[in-house]
């Protein structure tokens, strides 16, 4: 199995939204390499014709009446936990910039 490259690790950090220093990127490249080498054991399984499982306990969907019920907690309680808020609104980072 191909080894993971540093540019792949950089791309993963970006996708994962984690800022990492060069040293951290190198360390994590080594760790991921060693984990992926272990994961190669999956090839020991004979999986031809086997269907992938997506749910293990055999539950099926069940419907219920569309009726309003008491929620888990009053919305004020939920809003309380936002780290940055204005009134009943949570502040979010800006994603568009106009320079």
């Amino acid at each position, binding site marked *: 199995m191909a080894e*993971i490259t540093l540019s*792949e*690790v950089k791309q*993963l*950090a*970006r*996708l*994962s*939204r*984690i*800022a*990492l220093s060069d040293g951290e990127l190198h360390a*994590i490249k*080594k*760790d*991921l390499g*060693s*984990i*992926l080498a*272990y*994961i*190669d*054991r*999956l090839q*020991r*399984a*004979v*999986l031809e014709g*086997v*269907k*992938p*499982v*997506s*749910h*293990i*306990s055999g*539950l099926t969907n069940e419907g*219920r009446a569309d009726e309003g*019920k008491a929620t*888990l*907690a009053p919305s004020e*309680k*939920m809003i*309380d*936990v*936002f*780290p*940055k808020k204005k009134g009943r609104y*949570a*502040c*979010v*980072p*800006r*994603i568009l*910039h106009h320079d």
Partner: protein
Amino acid sequence: MRACLAFFIMIKEFRQNVVGGKASAREIASQYLKNAKELNKEYNSFVSFCDALALESAARIDKKVSEKKPLGKLAGVPIAIKDNMLVKDFSATAGSKMLEHYVASFDADAVKFLRDEDALIIGKTNMDEFAMGSSSETSHFGPVKNNVGKNLVPGGSSGGSAVAVASGQVIAALGSDTGGSIRQPASFTGTVGLKPTYGRVSRSGLIAMASSLDQIGTFTTSVEDCALLLEVISQDTDFDATYARKTFHWPQLDKKEILQAIAQVRIGVPDEFFGEGLSAEIARAVRGALEMLEHAGAQIIPLSLPCLEYALACYYVLMPAEVSSNLARYDCIRYSPVEVEKMSTTIHDYDAVRSIGFGKEVQRRIMLGTYVLSSGYVDKYYLEAQKARTKILQDFSDAFLRVDIIAGPVSPTFPFGLGEKINPKRINDPVSMYLADIYTVAVNLAGLPAISLPLPGLKLPAGIQFIAGQFAEEQLLRAARGYEEIILS
């Protein structure tokens, strides 16, 4: 040092003392809070304590006693909760800096059920960050120490709950098990640790790690206490779509019935459980215990479960995939580890905050999960692992046509040293830590119930694992009771 402490039935005794007026709930709550805080200086098994809640519940219980009103099944029983489960108005950190300032706005279902039965919630136990680890060393709040030796780890990720029960800080505790996080610390501390069937206990209010594998379970000092707690926490809920609506009921058995049950049980022993890496002493102890059960009439049947060879590899694809998706919610909008005024307002801060808020192991798993789900690799890794999971399910269902219980070791080793597998000054291979779960992960992949029970006569704690078919907890706990009577009494 007591390497094996099982078989103390405590819950009923506590309840009877409270109901009979021999002890007030208030006294119990204050004494246990005081003692737990004192011992916490040594073990670091708790992240926080719930004084106000414990004392308020105690006052309510004492009032009920004085008014001769009926009391719940857990009246006056001091219980600890792993810090990844929500207790309303108290912090729930999941061992992470990311949630250092988070206060829960509702009770987890399992916690609510305990409170409804008049339990005394003493505090929140320390754990590996977001339940990722097998030693309880990755917590932002420092490592948990094993009460049998302070230079030893208690196992993980529910190490705090395990030590809280083993050291007598509480009578019972809740933990969560995604790949062995209840059974392995139970093995390392000589407690009884149950991971129920996937879907047996509501996960509402459990901070998610890998949603198709996570399950809430118990730490106790006896199987009887374990069964009683499972009855309480497996109650019906509308808040978890994967809850199977199968509340557990435990038939009270006398000693004769227990011994009769063990004489009829068929115990399968997979060869793969005794492979490379297993401590010879643990292997001997497991085989010895099984021989004693055989003398008592149990049938011991050799088995082969080839899937055990690749279950850990399968787990290390599926678990990180789910982790990377579940932990995307830590977006600094709803939760933040830094003071909000210091946060600026661009998307790059999101990356910076996630690098401060998450520890190394969590970052590693998020990135690994992102990798196995990324375009070009998803078929090679994720899809193959989902197929392997089907095989694992099949292997177990085939085995359970021939046997009632599958038995083997819980962990390949005794408790290892603090810093032995995680040490910032050394380069450590993460796989060496992952191998600690080699005998436990298959059970989560197949959604089965399993229990860790202490092995007798060893220099340090180690457990034997019993596994049963999905929703066969009654059979599992009957066999476990038999084990207690024959091996531990």
